[in-house]
């Protein structure tokens, strides 16, 4: 994914935020399909990967992925974990909504809508 980026600097860090996202994404997808049937994952959360996953599982489904699927929320995920994950995604995509990249801004609005939908589905409306 970063092939076009030449980076000369190197440092050591305890953990990556993306690790948490990847773990959640794995949990969300593991029950549904074997890894080798999925589009290649690279540790970075990608809504389109979830969309592709849904295509694989339900090729005849008319509707697109649900908000939960877009957000990588598995059906048996504990509420505390859902809350943490939604907070992480909200922080990311709320910032992305002000990005200098117009494509990312557009994607962010769609994700924020899904995040709020999941929040209301799981915890009820405000």
């Amino acid at each position, binding site marked *: 994914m*970063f092939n076009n*980026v*030449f*980076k*000369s*600097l*190197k*440092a*050591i*860090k*305890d*953990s*990556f*935020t*993306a*690790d948490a996202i990847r773990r959640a994404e794995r949990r969300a997808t593991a029950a549904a399909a074997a890894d080798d049937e999925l589009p290649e994952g690279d*540790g*970075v*959360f990608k809504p389109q990967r979830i969309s592709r996953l849904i295509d694989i599982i339900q090729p005849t489904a008319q509707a697109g992925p649900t908000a939960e699927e877009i957000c990588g929320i598995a059906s048996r995920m504990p509420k505390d974990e859902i809350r943490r994950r*939604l*907070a992480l995604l*909200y*922080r*990311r995509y*709320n*910032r*992305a*909504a*002000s*990005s*200098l*990249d*117009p494509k*990312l*801004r557009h994607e962010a*609005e769609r994700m*924020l*809508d899904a*995040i*709020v*939908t999941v*929040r*209301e589905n799981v915890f009820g*409306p*405000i």
Partner: protein
Amino acid sequence: MAEFVGIDLGTTLSGLAYLRPDGQAEIVPNGDGERLTPSVVYFDRHEEITLVGSAARDGGDPERTVYQIKRHMDDPDHYVEVDGRRWTPAEISALILSKLKRECSRLIGDFTEAVITVPANFNELARKSTIAAAEMAEIKVSRLVNEPTAAAVYYAHTQDVDGRILVFDLGGGTLDVTILEVQNEEIQILTSEGARHLGGSNIDETLLELYADQYREQVNAELFTDERQRRRALQAAEDAKKMLSKLQRYTDTIGNDTNGIARIEVRREAFEKAVSKLLTRSIMLVEQALDGVSLKPSEIDHVVLVGGSTRIPKVKSALEKFFGKAPKSCSNVDEAVALGAAVFAQRAAHVREVCNQSYGTLAMLVNAATGEEAVRNSIVIAKNTPIPCSKTQIYMTSEPNERFIEVDITQGEDDDPRFVDVIGKISLEVPPDRPAGCEVAVTYSYDENQRVRALVVDKQSGRSQEVAVTYRGAGILSEEELQKRGRALRQLRIE
């Protein structure tokens, strides 16, 4: 001559305030006698005149009228074309500022400097566009200050309170949340968070959908089929929003020349249900702000409302439920930001701000736990660090015989490079034939005017390079072009 002037360049309304000799901030009315000026610009077809404010909003052809230009200040590709001339968002904003400056100067005397407020989440381009707009209007920006910070300063100044304050600023186009601590005269901003496209106009659009649905059910036709009709209906929806803040039920008659009229009835309950997603998003932003400084709702002493849409009862009740205490308003919620900007102009030395964003560099990071390597955004100055500040991170070169140390200067907290903006670059040439692992120190400094400087030092050779980090990408006018457009703008008749 007014010494301390503050301007709220808002999405829907703009206002100018100054500090009177007795130290009290006061709104200065425009030439139409209005305390606040609608941020609307109209280019007349027949006369060489540009209307700004209520006249522009009420009477014009929508194709020649510009609404809510502030929403596009961060879009380098956005322009408004009228009679073959292309106007950038900064130029349209400059017209609004010009009207404020010209007309308010008649009452308070000429002024050349002002504090201008911006949403907390305005990106580099939007901030620079705001400064460019002011320069074209012959206003030197002494400071850009975040809108909720200005409102908080006004609240602390007028209410004489101490403790932790959370300001919930639901403006025309954005929601900003700021948490600050006040002790005696001193104000320490702890954090500011903002949400783009979450404001009063989004609520109006939602209500417009309710109107359109009811109209379709009754008349079996569309409420609007062109921009002029849509604008009229949107104005009716905005009026309905205001009424539903006072009444449980509101009836209206609306229609168009083609399909006739219909009687619309909206109940507050239906309105609140329609805007519930926006409210949920608002509360999530509050949670994000609290989480960013590790505070619980119970640790906030005062919740302060700013912005016209905080008049909606559901906004107040949602915040009261969340915090367990009733939120308060400071004077007129529409004017607090401009008034606070004027107070800030004088009291800036008593206000300690924080970095609104994290600043870092892209680097090949090694996960100490797993050994995994990946290009990540490595933060040098973290968001919410009190300013002024200077921070250094040490990196190593990753390959032998590297001739150039490349440093991408990033803005954003995420460690995933996809979700941060690269706002500058430094390339430092170093001696040949060196092994991997040479130490490189990257130092960022952030001053009170939100200017970032970056210094890269190759420790082995002692070579270094320092730059002022400034976004120079698309949408930024050159100094020459800025002056040229400013001169052209000053020739216009603006009413």
